[in-house]
């Protein structure tokens, strides 16, 4: 014992013992929980049916390629929506800071906008915009659900993104603004070169979380037409009378969202460390 711990300080040796003990406890309790699940869940009366309809390996093999293909549509909608959301969100955040009386309507609009679109469920906006606007009798291609589904996502998400940008702008200390103004910089240059670069850096982790939420909410467009992964899984469900395609779809989402969530958490942790 004494030999093994040669070179360690008393504190280090103590902490190593503590670490080993808590690792053993953690392993023991995890093992117990997994064992209980493995033993108990199959004993539930409906387990055989659930296994067949949710975890049928043959169905996984049959549906995976087409589901993955459909997921590319989700990714594409995400990819063209995200930059529009960022641009519109930033514009609204800036509009709410405007002090020029000529631009007052812009400021009022910014406040109304964020109130309305943060207050309505995304799926409702998708329905109302996706069915309502093409219902005006627009002709092809202007009645496409891709266009109006995208518009619905952009409207909703830019309201959230705008609020996050605004909190970032407000978090930059007044003394930074004063330093810039005292050098003779204009208000807009102060915002552009001094406040915004700091504000945007601070809200990147929070905006990452919005991106993850957006990637998931793209599936809501299935309600108005596009055959993306959720809708494709529904088609398979009806065809095969089996729910496994939904599990496959969920797994495909996780492959994308879990690493993204980890990255966001990592960025937040790094920022918290940098501040202390």
């Amino acid at each position, binding site marked *: 014992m004494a030999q093994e711990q040669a070179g360690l300080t008393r504190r280090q040796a103590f902490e190593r013992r503590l670490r080993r003990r808590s690792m053993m406890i953690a392993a023991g309790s995890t093992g117990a929980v997994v064992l209980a699940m493995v033993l108990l869940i199959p004993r539930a009366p409906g387990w055989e049916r659930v296994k067949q309809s949710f975890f049928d390996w043959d169905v996984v093999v049959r549906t995976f390629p087409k589901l993955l293909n459909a997921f590319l549509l989700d990714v594409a909608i995400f990819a063209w929506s995200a930059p529009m959301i960022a641009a519109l969100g930033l514009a609204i955040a800036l509009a709410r800071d405007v002090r020029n009386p000529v631009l007052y309507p812009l400021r009022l609009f910014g406040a109304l906008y964020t109130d309305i679109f943060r207050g309505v469920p995304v799926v409702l906006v998708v329905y109302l915009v996706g069915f309502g606007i093409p219902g005006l009798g627009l002709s092809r291609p202007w009645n496409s659900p891709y266009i109006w589904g995208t518009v619905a996502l952009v409207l909703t998400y830019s309201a959230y993104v705008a609020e996050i940008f605004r909190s970032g702008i407000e978090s930059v200390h007044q*003394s*930074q603004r*004063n*330093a*810039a*103004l*005292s*050098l*003779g*910089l*204009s208000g807009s*240059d102060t915002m552009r*070169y*001094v406040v915004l*670069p*700091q504000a945007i*850096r601070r809200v990147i982790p929070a905006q990452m979380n919005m991106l993850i939420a957006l990637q998931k909410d793209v599936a809501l467009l299935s309600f108005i037409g596009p055959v993306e992964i959720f809708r494709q899984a529904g088609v398979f469900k009806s065809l095969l009378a089996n729910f496994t395609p939904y599990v496959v779809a969920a797994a495909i989402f996780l492959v994308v969202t879990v690493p993204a969530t980890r990255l966001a958490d990592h960025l937040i942790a790094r920022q918290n460390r940098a501040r202390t």
Partner: protein
Amino acid sequence: MKLRLENIQKSFGDTRVLDGISLDVAEGEMVCLIGASGSGKSTLLRCINLLEPLDDGAIWLDGEDIADPALDPQPIRQRIGIVFQSFNLFPHMTAEDNVMLAPRRVRGLSRDALRPQITALFDRFGLADRMGHYPDQLSGGQQQRVAIVRALAMQPEIMLFDEITSALDPELVGEVLEVLKTLKQDGMTMVLATHEMAFARDVADRVCFLDRGRILEQGPPAQIFTTPTQARTRDFLSRVLNTGQAPAA
């Protein structure tokens, strides 16, 4: 007179912070404002720079009333440099970019056109090898000197200093005060709010004692520090000089 303050009034809510301040500053003069915390020194400097709007009174800069509320403050601020207690460098820019931002945006000069002048300024204040550093890579004294260079790069007509050594470790105060002596030799017109009594005594042309938003007493440092006429000035000086709050410059 380079700068003339006339009956300056400023309140924050019900609190009267500046209560009729009048002061003349001649070209090339260094005026030190001393007084307890809350006596109005910082607010006065921020008013001169138009960061705080005045309630009443006038500020004449070269014979022009810059306190006219209808004036656009932006071009006036370019003529008046200010350095703050907490440096307020832009943390996302290198020292060089901090200094270049205003001349580039406001005077429309290119980096290349600015570089000789800026490099000379950094060099002059011992910062030649720090131009590419970010503020958090610099000591407090270096940051404050960069902040001074940043203000000087706009070639201001007068400079204001708001307790610029108060946030510094004691061993870094000297290098910043040296910069002020250099500027005085250059003939820069300066108004300082300071707690560095020894520096004020040795370097200032005139010392003003502020108390509750008024200039209670002013005169050459030799007179203010040795034979103050007001009881409150004597009180203040005996407190700060006896507690050693003013290390030698």
